[in-house]
């Protein structure tokens, strides 16, 4: 019971508890079983305080999304794109100037590079020719987890972490699929189906001396 506690753990748990009560979802991080158990319990103690009733605003926004999804799912009717759902939801949730700012971020359709040019470092992730056409290879580049994909002879790399809730995606068919909620992405990382709000970020690649390098974060191995 009185085993020593690391200050690191103490601070992490405190930050997590603050995040639980805050407006955003707590960030996922690799944890050991003890820490996970403490987090799970903390999350469940909160219901004693707040009761967990939804806000009217949320219910109304979701009812609208569900209505749009029904319209989109019906054959012969114009499909409402995933992006349009998000846009509507954001507009409803934020309203006015906030919505315009949020759309600016979402509207940038092209996947952005995960690690900015000039930052991070290059990691050797495969030999040229190692990934056959149609194939995929998982790699780690510092703190970056991604897939190297060969589509029609062209190599590209995208992040292996779903933009919805941070689960891992796996290659399936020509694209990638999230194991948690079934979001699907094409080989360019674009959202094809599901709840992912943004494309999988692209990871920069370069080829030198028969090896493929991916730009990842600068971290000690």
């Amino acid at each position: 019971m009185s085993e020593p506690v690391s200050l690191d753990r103490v601070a992490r748990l405190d930050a997590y508890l603050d995040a639980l009560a805050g407006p955003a979802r707590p960030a996922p991080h690799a944890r050991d079983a003890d820490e996970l158990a403490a987090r799970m319990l903390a999350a469940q103690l909160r219901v004693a305080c707040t009761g967990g009733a939804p806000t009217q605003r949320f219910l109304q926004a979701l009812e609208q999304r569900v209505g749009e999804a029904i319209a989109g799912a019906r054959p012969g009717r114009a499909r409402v794109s995933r992006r349009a759902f998000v846009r509507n939801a954001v507009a409803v949730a934020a309203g006015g100037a906030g919505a315009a700012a949020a759309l600016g971020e979402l509207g940038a359709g092209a996947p952005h590079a995960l690690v900015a040019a000039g930052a991070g470092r290059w990691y050797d992730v495969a030999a040229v020719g190692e990934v056959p056409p149609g194939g995929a290879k998982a790699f780690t580049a510092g703190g970056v987890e991604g897939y190297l994909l060969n589509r029609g002879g062209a190599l590209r790399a995208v992040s292996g972490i779903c933009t919805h809730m941070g689960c891992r995606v796996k290659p399936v068919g020509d694209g990638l699929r999230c194991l948690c909620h079934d979001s699907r992405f094409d080989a360019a990382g674009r959202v094809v189906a599901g709840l992912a709000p943004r494309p999988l970020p692209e990871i920069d690649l370069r080829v030198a001396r028969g090896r493929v390098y991916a730009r990842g974060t600068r971290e000690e191995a």
Partner: protein
Amino acid sequence: MVRERAASAAVRTAFQENAAEIHRFIYAKVGNRAAAEDLTSVVFLKAVRWIAADRSADSIRAWLYATARTSIADFWRAQAQDDQLTREVAERLLFCGSDSEQEVRRTRERAERILAALPERDREVLRLRFLHDLDSRRIAAALGITPGHARVVQLRALRRAAAVAERSAA
């Protein structure tokens, strides 16, 4: 067309009847508003594809809870980023029983039991944290201790509470 119209009416009715309860159920297990809203959305957008006109209100409700449970388990697997945490294990760690409609009440009762079983200082800190929604700085001020000490007590208290929960589940 008639069938489709009936199906979409069934989804709307299911939403109106169950959305608030499903949100409460999910909130009780994730403890964070943004996450609860997100998972509730997942459940009802999936329901659009699943619900057909000929399903009964009971079977729809059962499906909504089952889907919510799976989404909650997936949420925690993502939080853990641990491929070893299977859905089954997450389920066992998370839920008080198989009756989802009783889960919120049971979670709340269990929280009370756990708090009652803790030493007084631990209970005080967790009450201030969760029932009064204070951060560690304010907890420290309320108890006349340093914020650093409040954070250490809070970690130990939650660890003890987790151990109590595990014993009572076993």
